């Protein structure tokens, strides 16, 4: 588990959180599981980075939050993407594609 832990680039976490919420609202633990799932276990987000990031994104207006019931009937705080968040996701994804393409091209070069 921890061996496959990769250091998250600054900004990557934001992108992953936004992406994980694309399909619907989740609570903090849900977000962390969802990220693990969509990165095939490559990224495990620890609460120490998750919560500051969630709150930061919410204050930026990209997420909104509300209190609801979890699948196990626990009271939990849920996050969902706002309109601005969706735009931001598109924007950041595009940026990332560019960087990734450039990086892989660079690494393939001899």
């Amino acid at each position, binding site marked *: 588990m921890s061996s496959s832990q990769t250091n998250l680039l600054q900004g990557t976490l934001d992108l992953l959180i936004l992406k994980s919420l694309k399909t619907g609202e989740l*609570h*903090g*633990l849900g977000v962390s599981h969802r990220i693990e799932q969509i990165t095939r276990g490559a990224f495990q987000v*620890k*609460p*120490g980075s998750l*919560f*500051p990031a969630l*709150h*930061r994104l*919410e*204050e*930026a*207006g990209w997420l909104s939050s509300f209190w609801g019931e*979890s699948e*196990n009937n*626990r*009271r*939990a*705080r849920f996050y969902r993407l706002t309109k*601005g968040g969706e735009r931001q996701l598109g924007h950041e994804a595009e940026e990332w594609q560019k960087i990734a393409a450039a990086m892989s091209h660079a690494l393939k070069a001899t």
Partner: protein
Amino acid sequence: MQFLSRLESLMRNLLRKHEVDADLEEELESYATMRADERVAGGISRSEARRSTLAELGGIEHIKQSVRDGRTGITFELLWQDVRFALRQLRRSPGFTITAVLTLTLAIGANAVVFGVLNALILRPLNVPQAESLFVVQHGSGVASHSYPDYLDLRQRNRSFDDVAVFVISQSGLDTGIDPSNVWEYETSGNYFDVLRIQPYLGRFFHASDEHGPNSAPYVVLSYAYWHTHFQDDRTVVGRVVRLNRHPFTILGVAPPGFQGTVLFFASDIFVPIVDHEQLSGDKMILNARGTRWMFEMVGRLRPGVTPAQANADLNSVDSYLKKSYPRDESNDPYTLARPGLHGDYLSGPTRAFLTGLMLLSGLILLAACANLGSLFAARAADRSRELALRLALGSSRNCILRQLFTESMLLSLAGGAAGLTASILLLRRLSVWQPFPRFPLHVPVSPDANVYLVALVLALVSGVLFAIVPVRQILRANPYEIVKAGSTGAFGRRFIVRDVLLVVQIAICAVVTSSMVAVRGLMRSMHSNFGFEPQNAMLVDTDLTTAGYSGERVPAMQRRMIDAIQAIPGVDSVGSVNYPPLEPPGSWQGTVYTDTTTDLSPSNAAADPYWFNVSPDYFRASGTSWLAGRAFTWHDDTNAPRVAVVNREFARKILGSVPDAVGRHFKLRDGTRVRVVGLVEDGKYVNLTEGQRPAMFFPLLQSPASWIWMVVRSSRDPQQLAAAMRSVLRNIDPAMVLAIRPWSTELGGTLFPSRMATVALGVLGIMGAMLSITGIFGMAAYSVSKRLRELGIRLALGAKRKEVLQAALGRAVKLLAIGSGIGLVLGLLATKVLAFIVYQATPRDPLVLVGVVLAMLLLGLVATWIPAQRALGVNPLILLREE
């Protein structure tokens, strides 16, 4: 969108902090519970699941802190934390806090006051539209510099000004039907208001088109203040006819509030066209006299695009034409331009120099205050060096500690600045309504404005930074491990030479000023000294029969009736009259006299220029002048009788050659008239209190008549009642009489003005000096005590006597105090010799003052070293040694 969301978060984080925090707490708790749920589902026990979850979280508090650090508005929160911390620190040392705030209050307040005056008199443009194109046209450097015909020519012939206006200042009797009184007026050219481009508050102004030759424009415009106080804001005054020196004038309108003419110091009551000058003064000639330069000020509005230099050249070319046409009447002075407001360069030069000097001085005071507070701050930082070192060692950043230091200094300086500004606003308001001379509408219009607030704020911030800078190096260099290990050390020891010198200078200034307090004693004594008359229980009635329309033979008859009428009032002891009372500013009349034996009456042979008074028979009794020999005047000393005079002792000594035989001798006036001396009175003060013995002569009213006289009424009745009684009897004789009745002691206020001002200035300087010395010595003593606290503790533990400990702790401070006081005392003695010229009866070698200075300096030293000394003596060696 994003901005709005940020703003919303900011508001929420700042205003509903507890709610937000509780929310976060609950969120993390729910996260932990759910995570534990998963583990339990994986087959572990509940308690084990909980434990491992918490381990995974790695400290809930830590996560909370990272969330908080990312929040919008974290800066505010940190600032607020710093402020609260600083407030706690300051509350813990009230002595320091009070000293610092008080020092800053005085220093910043002084700066704000001086700047307020500078701003109002020099920096702020005149309160008229487009003041920047308005200039004063000067001709030479006198008070008044143009004749009326010259003005008319300049106005017509110049090509640089849109228009030029002119005015003189004079006084008239204004009769509105009830209680006629004196008013100060601007007699202006008809275009005056149009040149200034101001609009009336009510009614209309007069214009150049209203002038059609002498006495053609019987119109008057009231100033707003006069309308407000004398017409009670009655809007129906426009069109009403009033009498000015008995001539009917129509009120045209009211000038706007805040406008009082183009001379800042002088608040005029009314404005009248100068073409009516003959009616106002009775002088038929002066408007046409080209050689008489009596126009008080000429103001012109420059044409757009014309520079002052071009205008100047233009004026001088007009001048050369005038010189050619009227060679006998024109002077050789060139024309110059100056800014309006302070009567051109006549007042603005000295005022500017004086205020700049004052500004510089108050800036230095602030700087010295900052230096002192800086050393106090350094002492505090040394006190807290262990605390600071611990915090550094525990991971607090130096930035964080410096931030707190600056927060503390900013709090102090802002508090001081706010208090100083408040005090200065109150003072400036008082100054604005202050009228030092009861008879003249002179005042200093210095209402504070936004500039003053801004300057006070900037000064507060700058001084906060300045005195916080002093201990910065000390903190940056501090090595936490050394300090924790060894206790605070004197690493910054004797490098205080500059500050020592500064301190000695401050103390010396304080001592100088304290010894200058002889001035206060002198002032008190001069209030009760012998003036050659007795101002107590005497009233002055200022009556000008010209303004009441009397002339020729009717004047003395009327004056006699008035004197008799007042004499008949019950409780009046005696009534006399004098042409101009002694010690009334600006000064008495003088006349040239010759000894009886002089035959060539050229000026170089004159014996003296004695003061000249025309008095009624009972004047000497009414004024309380002591009689030495001979007889007083009677009403029979008139034009049919031989010329007689009463002289003072100095006159007899200097001109008649003998005091005992003075009565019966003669002297000559400039026209050769022989005058017989019939009486001898004591010497007195005639123009100012510091003058030496001067000769004076008194002539009977009927032999040298004057239409403007002051009646002196001696009575022990209540001044208010007496004034009312006099008013009513005089009004019975002539209801249109213009009267100004004041107690003589009040009237003397103007004479005492210079010494009062000197005393006030000294007092203020003294307080500043004392304050600086106290904070300086306090700072130094506190610093040296806290630096050597451990040493003192060990000494006490080893059995040192209290005296020795005090000597070790405070010796340096006391030594500086002694040196400073010594220097100050010597300088003070020299300075008081100078002061003795300004302030009557201020002798430098006044024993009371010497004792006072020594006592004051002792007290100062005691106050400033009290707290540090207590601390030095109160050291508990056991606790101290255990702590270290």
